[in-house]
């Protein structure tokens, strides 16, 4: 099946369809599709709640084909990547994955993503944004090739407490041996797939990478294998809920790529996003290092933190204040959720210094629309540890056999 709908001129081209599109359309009860990185993908299949609970209690399957993928190859690939991203890529072993961010000269985040080491000199960089221009300019002086392979790989996230069982059932023998961030290669009735123990849910889960022409075959076998373990296709709304619980950042929600900000001060450094642990100042030079060293010496002006908000009304887009009176504005909520699993009203927020310390109390201004009448609530919130939800099963190897 062709991924591109037609050979129309580019400005008339509709959104691309992933190789799972036909299957997704069959399962979609709302025909609710949204644009994601140039593809049309499902927002909700049935209800966000049902899909959310599939991930937390059984297994959810999410089509992540539109995730932008770059293949980086060559004798200098490791050195190139070490210069590109903030973490120490020299520590990434073959068949391992690392989450990282990368910055521009000002130490502001261009994107976050996962780096897969597929071989001695071969990596995949999976990201939210298309950025071949930056990746190629970063390659000046390095013996590497950088190529976008998004359309050459189909991918499914299989996430939830029963995911390992289901994948074993599918024929991925030995998948239970994969530790978090491990990569393994398997065959499903002779079709080779790659699996990594990675995901965006903070739960036990895997991502399965396959050739596009085998996508429907794998989908069908997977759904069959999981039938008795509550497998369910999930859309981006449910994924957004679970990632907030896991404390993962969503580009365009929690930060904007520095390449696409227009206004001054809208770009974010990893230190501001609380990703200090991703920044390795000792590994030698990398993009943005000098700016980050200076920022660290100055102290960050704001920080992305977790909030525990009073009440049960999600604090969507709420402005934050020092006091209930709302006189001094000190930040805003970027992502909010009533967490069904934690039974807490949680949020991710950008809070100005010095109010971002753990335990700080802030006030959130929440607007509620009740039958077209807007009500305003000032509720207290506390800066708390992230992630909000981190079950042991996400790490246990081998996972429970269920």
């Amino acid at each position, binding site marked *: 099946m062709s991924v591109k709908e037609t050979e129309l001129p580019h400005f008339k081209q509709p959104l691309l369809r992933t190789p799972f599109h036909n299957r997704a359309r069959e399962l979609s009860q709302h025909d609710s599709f949204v644009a994601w990185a140039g593809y049309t993908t499902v927002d909700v299949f049935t209800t966000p709640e049902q899909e959310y609970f599939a991930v937390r209690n059984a297994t959810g399957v999410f089509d992540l084909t539109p995730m932008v993928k770059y293949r980086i190859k060559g004798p200098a690939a490791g050195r190139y990547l070490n210069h590109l991203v903030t973490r120490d890529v020299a520590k990434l072993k073959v068949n391992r994955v690392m989450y990282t961010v990368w910055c*521009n000269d000002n130490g502001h985040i261009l994107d976050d993503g996962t780096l897969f080491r597929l071989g001695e000199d071969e990596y995949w960089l999976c990201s939210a944004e298309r950025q071949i221009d*930056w990746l190629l300019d970063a390659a*000046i*002086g*390095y013996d590497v090739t950088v190529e976008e392979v998004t359309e050459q790989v189909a991918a499914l996230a299989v996430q939830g407490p029963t995911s390992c069982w289901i994948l074993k059932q599918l024929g991925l023998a030995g998948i239970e041996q994969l530790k978090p961030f491990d990569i393994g290669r398997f065959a499903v009735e002779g079709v080779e797939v790659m699996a990594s123990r990675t995901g965006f849910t903070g739960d036990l889960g895997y991502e399965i990478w396959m050739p596009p022409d085998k996508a429907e075959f794998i989908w069908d076998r997977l759904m069959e294998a999981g039938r008795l373990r509550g497998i369910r296709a999930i859309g981006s709304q449910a994924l957004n809920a679970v990632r907030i619980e896991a404390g993962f950042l969503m580009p365009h929600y929690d930060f904007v790529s520095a390449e696409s900000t227009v206004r001054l001060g809208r770009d974010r450094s990893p230190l501001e996003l609380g990703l200090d642990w991703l920044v390795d100042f000792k590994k030698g030079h990398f*993009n943005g290092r000098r700016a980050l060293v200076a920022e660290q010496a100055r102290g960050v002006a704001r920080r992305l933190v977790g909030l525990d908000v009073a009440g049960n009304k999600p604090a969507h887009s709420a402005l934050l204040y020092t006091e209930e009176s709302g006189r001094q504005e000190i930040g805003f909520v970027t992502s909010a959720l009533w967490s069904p699993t934690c039974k807490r009203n949680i949020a991710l927020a950008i809070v100005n210094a010095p109010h971002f310390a753990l335990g700080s109390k802030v006030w959130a201004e929440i607007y509620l629309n009740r039958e077209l009448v807007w009500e305003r609530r000032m509720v207290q919130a506390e800066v708390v540890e992230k992630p909000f939800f981190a079950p042991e099963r996400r790490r246990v190897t081998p996972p429970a056999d269920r």
Partner: protein
Amino acid sequence: MQAHFDVIIIGAGHNGLVCGALLAKRGKRVLIVEGSAATGGAAGTHEFAPGFRASTAHLLHLMPRALITALGLEQQGLRFAATRMPTTALSAEGNHLSLAADAVAAASPADAAAYPAFTARFTRLAGALRPMLGAPPPRLGTDAWSDRIALLKLGWQVRRLGRRDMRELLRIIGMNAYDLLEDNFSSPLLKGALAFDATLGANLGPRAPGTVLTWLMRQALESADGNTGLAQPVGGMGGLTDALTRAATAAGAEVRTGTRVERVLVADDRVTGVVLGSGESLLAPVVVSNADPKTTFLDLLGPEHLDTGFVRKVDHCRARGVTAKLHLALDRLPAFLNLSQSALKGRLLFSPSMAYLERAFDAPKYGEHSAEPALEITVPTMNDPTLAPSGQHVLSAVIECAPRDLRAGWDGSKDAYQALLLDRLEALAPGLKESVRAVELLTPLDLERRYGNRGGHWHHAELAFDQFLFVRPVPGAAQYATPVQGLFLCGAASHPGGGVVGENGRLAAQAVLAKAV
């Protein structure tokens, strides 16, 4: 580890030498490392045929008097074979035009009044820019008082011109030379010659925006008090750079020629020295590069020590040389059609109209060399017989335009181009070809190979608004310091630009003293 020197300078072009001499005078232990066998870079003099010597940069006209004095170059042997050399605009038909004011008046009554008035005003306007050319570029968007004061000074200089001149400067500064000249003069020969000076060395024809700026800069330096005008040092431009070399060594600097720097050493984000071609490492906390930005950052330092945005700017920095150089060894004096012998003591321009010149600059856009080149010709032996065996002569010609990246490649095309150039010269000076004993044609590619500047550009990096002053050669390296601590630039690509000026070297030395050691 013990440092061997306080400062290591990569390259003994005239800027590297100025920088090294000034730092040594301030008591720094300085090493100047030059890749070629001789010092001077493009401002050196070389033997291109047995007994015949030529200088790639053949006319000295930009270097401030104060710098020559400060370095004691005359005490070190600098002499002038000629100063205030006159210019003649050649016409193919032999109706040449001397650019002396009275001569212009005689030749073109229409331009008689306009020429002196224009020159006086243009010189006045250029004068307002002069202080800016002799000072480090202010940084934009900082809170530092030094930057604000520098910007205020610049504004003040322009304001001081008075309202009418200030308006005129602001009106013309972004213009192209073609329109400005078209507005003021009628003689095609006069306009062609003036436009030649406005665009010399740049990859910008007279109709390109910003060519008034390059012309103003040239005029600002050339018209400074005490300036020599167009001058020829004894022994060629090498006479100047030899004196500079002596000044540097007299001040205690060590100069090593024939020694290429392979790499700049960095540890903990600081420069620590250089590695030579021999593999030897020399340590110093400061390294100043006379090489162009691409060579310095991409080859010698390496992108791994820089941020990608900066590397991108360096990579995009425009440096496509289109100026070639021709040196002829002649067994007799060339006889230009209808031209007095004394005019050969001066400079000859062949740029018979602005349209002709514009077409010459068109060719490189299509990867071609111009079949009808514009020329700047000198016969240095007229003023300095030591440059050739007795009774014989050297003809030195700047050629516009021949691109570094000739579409057909230079390997198979150079001989044909050389023949074409000789034909063109023969047309201007019949009998010349017969007197030619040896030829040296230096295309921008040859210049790149010889002087190690990527692109083979006259100014190392194009001199245009987007690569000017606070953004020259690229933002982040415009104040001689670079993103890597201890690494500085001092070559033609830094402010104020190319030409045998020396201000780049002086200002870089200032920056080194202010920041480090």
